[in-house]
């Protein structure tokens, strides 16, 4: 079915190799890097499976943001260690696994783990083999009612119309992850700025990139947001790009990171879900159901929701990476 009969097996092999590496490799830092590579390869796999939307999300969020988060975690742990006097270099340094304080599980646990994971994998392989052959799916249903949603991209239709309720809960989940991260602030620092500081020297590469990239990123973000209605793309991908741009600008020292107690920041956090909720409620009188869109204005409503979501997603993702406030409020 493809011009590269060996491409898929090779890709799968590399994916699994990086997976094994991420688990088996000696240092935590290397494990994180392996995982990021694993994520990027997964994105390619998604393209191979014809799911470009998923591929974009996986690259931006699954590999990109997750990777940044994990890297910064490893770096900050190393910094704590260094602050305590355990002489560990910050980024490149091999954070040994286990660290001196961390116990390894016994042989019994290890063998149990092997048996268990092998059993799960085997059961799953069997389950895949058992799947019925004319495969059922909802392709036809999605297509047949696409016109009622006003959007052309089937994935966007699912995300914001057919299963918009999932997406509403999803953005709320994202918001609660941020609240969870914030809840780990020390009391004295509440109300201060999130932990990210600008690391760049004013004349360094970082600052240069920080000045160069934001306008481009902004453009890409807006494009992704707009294109979502027709082709792969949409609020989540756009939000991720905007968040990245914002973080870059912060790290370059171009814009200050806002305090967590700022009202504008709070409003930016809730605007997406709030608009979503409001339009959802408007569905009762307009279309007789929660989240019901009258076909005539469905497209407008969806764009409104996406606009709100993009703002909130960008803000939340950026702040998630920035972490809990570490500066005292002035």
């Amino acid at each position, binding site marked *: 079915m493809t011009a590269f009969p060996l491409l898929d097996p090779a890709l799968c092999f590399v994916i699994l190799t990086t997976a094994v590496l991420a688990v088996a490799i000696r240092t935590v830092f290397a494990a994180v890097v392996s995982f990021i590579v694993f994520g990027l390869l997964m994105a390619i796999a998604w393209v191979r499976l014809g799911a470009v939307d998923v591929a974009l999300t996986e690259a931006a969020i699954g590999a990109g943001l997750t990777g940044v988060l994990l890297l910064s975690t490893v770096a900050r742990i190393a910094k704590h260690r260094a602050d305590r006097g355990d002489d560990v270099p910050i980024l490149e340094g091999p954070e040994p696994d286990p660290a001196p304080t961390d116990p390894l599980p016994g042989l019994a646990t290890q063998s149990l783990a092997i048996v268990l994971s092998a059993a799960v994998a085997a*059961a*799953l392989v*069997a*389950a895949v083999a*058992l*799947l*019925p052959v004319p*495969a*059922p*799916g*909802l392709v036809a*249903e*999605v297509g047949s*009612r696409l016109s*009622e949603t006003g959007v052309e991209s089937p994935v966007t239709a699912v995300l914001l*119309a*057919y*299963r*918009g*309720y*999932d997406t*509403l*809960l*999803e953005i*709320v*989940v994202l*918001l*609660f*992850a941020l*609240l*969870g991260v*914030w*809840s*780990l*602030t*020390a*009391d004295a620092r*509440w*109300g201060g700025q999130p932990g990210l500081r600008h690391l760049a020297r004013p004349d360094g590469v970082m600052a240069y990139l920080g000045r160069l990239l934001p306008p481009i990123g902004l453009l890409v973000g807006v494009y992704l947001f707009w294109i979502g209605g027709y082709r792969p793309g949409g609020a989540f991908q756009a939000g991720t790009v905007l968040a990245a741009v914002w973080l870059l600008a912060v790290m370059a020292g171009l814009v200050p990171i806002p305090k967590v*107690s700022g*009202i504008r920041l*709070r*409003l930016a*956090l*809730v605007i997406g*879900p*709030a608009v979503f*909720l409001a339009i*959802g*409620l408007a*569905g*009762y009188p307009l*279309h*007789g*159901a*929660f*989240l*019901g*869109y009258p076909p005539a204005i469905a497209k407008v409503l969806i764009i409104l929701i996406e606009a709100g979501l993009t703002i909130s997603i960008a803000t939340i993702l950026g702040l998630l990476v920035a972490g809990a406030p570490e500066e005292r409020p002035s």
Partner: protein
Amino acid sequence: MPGVVWGPDVGSGLLALAVVLPVAGALLILPLGRHAERVPHLLFMAGLVLATAIAYHVWIGGVLTAAIGGWPAPLGIVLRADGLSAVMLLTTALVLVPVGIFAAGEFQPRTADGRESRAGLLFWPLMMGVWAGLNGTFLSNDLFNIYVALELLTLAAVPLVTLEGKAGTLAAALRYLLFALLGSLLYMLGAALLYGTHGTLDLTLLADRVRDDASALIAAALMTAGLLAKTAMFPLHLWLPPAHGGAPAAASAILSALVVKASFYLVVRLWFDLFPSLLDDTGATVLGLFGAAAILSGSVLALRQARLKLLVAYSTLAQLGYLFLMFPLAGGGTEAQPWTAGAWSGGIFHAVSHAFAKASLFLGAGILVQGIGHDRIADLRGAARSLPMVIAAFGLSGLSLMGLPPSGGFIAKWLLLTTAMASGRWGWAVVMFAGGLLAATYVFRVLNRAMATPEQPLRLVQPVHQSRQLAVLFLALVSVLLGLVPAIPFELLQIGGGLSTVEGFR
């Protein structure tokens, strides 16, 4: 035609509001910040009214369904409320109101010097998140949507554990989070396999399409394993006590009373509504044995705790065990029993009365910590004198744990026991009796201390506001009342229940 989406009546339109309300609450509280003081309580009250209204509509009109956005399944997501959902919804709302009143004494969005308080503010949206997750789980008829609701529940619940900023709770919270995440992923995996086989994730549609074959069994096993981990069912249970025992009292109450019940609820839904033909004797027995092991090990561990909050947390493990006895016992009644669905109703009843009793116990422990400065059981002498309402509530809630009348726990145990004896399944009855006696031992171990006269009169280190004590007593009284007026909740429960709730599995 998407025009007709109000469903058969107004009741269906209310379903989505049960999730909208708490979500809107969280969205409101965040920007309001330190001005948000009264918002949560109003929302809790509104939630109680809403849950009552939904239960009422289920009561008079039977099962409610609502297709969100007017998109029917399998394309869209359908909300569905039967008797079981309504009871869970109502339980949640009724626990949240007193817990909210209790928590107001501890979590004030505004600090004494007028600034915004971290824990005081964040507690409230997190509660709203838990609430939305619970309601979302109870009402959704779509397996993937339930996954999202469960994740919302987890991500709102875990930060509650560490909210007081105590270092000791961090490891507990992480362990909780990892178990919960793995659990949801296993659940999701099962759902993916079901989609691949049947092309839908709607529970009602799936129930018609699922056949008794190996792939369904693999899916069911994965989902069950994931949900057991989230419910803290033996042998995946040890994450629970440190997390529930270390959280602030109001959070512990919600976690132990409600959050673990959400995944239990799903296990019930899966087996009774989706896979009834799939569970054979062996499977049901395995689930029952997990339950039995949880009852015995949880009770014994509870006995050995030195701190009250940990004792109460371990008792949760034991009490969750009873719920899983409904699987081997389902359908065990004989002609002689006039009650239908004895074991099933008994299990659910146990979950509900345990919710009230356990919330009361955790809040009571919180008051003890506040009032006498600690919760070491050995040093509780004189507590019955200084905080009589709290100790009385402890005793009343203890009734439900022990399964003694009058309490909801007794009715639950009665239903389970008669079913066990009617079908000649002695072993399960013996486990329940042993669990009851062990529970009596740990409950009275605490009461004995509290009743004893101290050498010096016990002085409160900090006064305890009357309203907080009343909240504790209220919850305890509800758990007792469930044993006196169980007829209405019992009948409500039966609405929309599948045949398997009455006849058991194949």
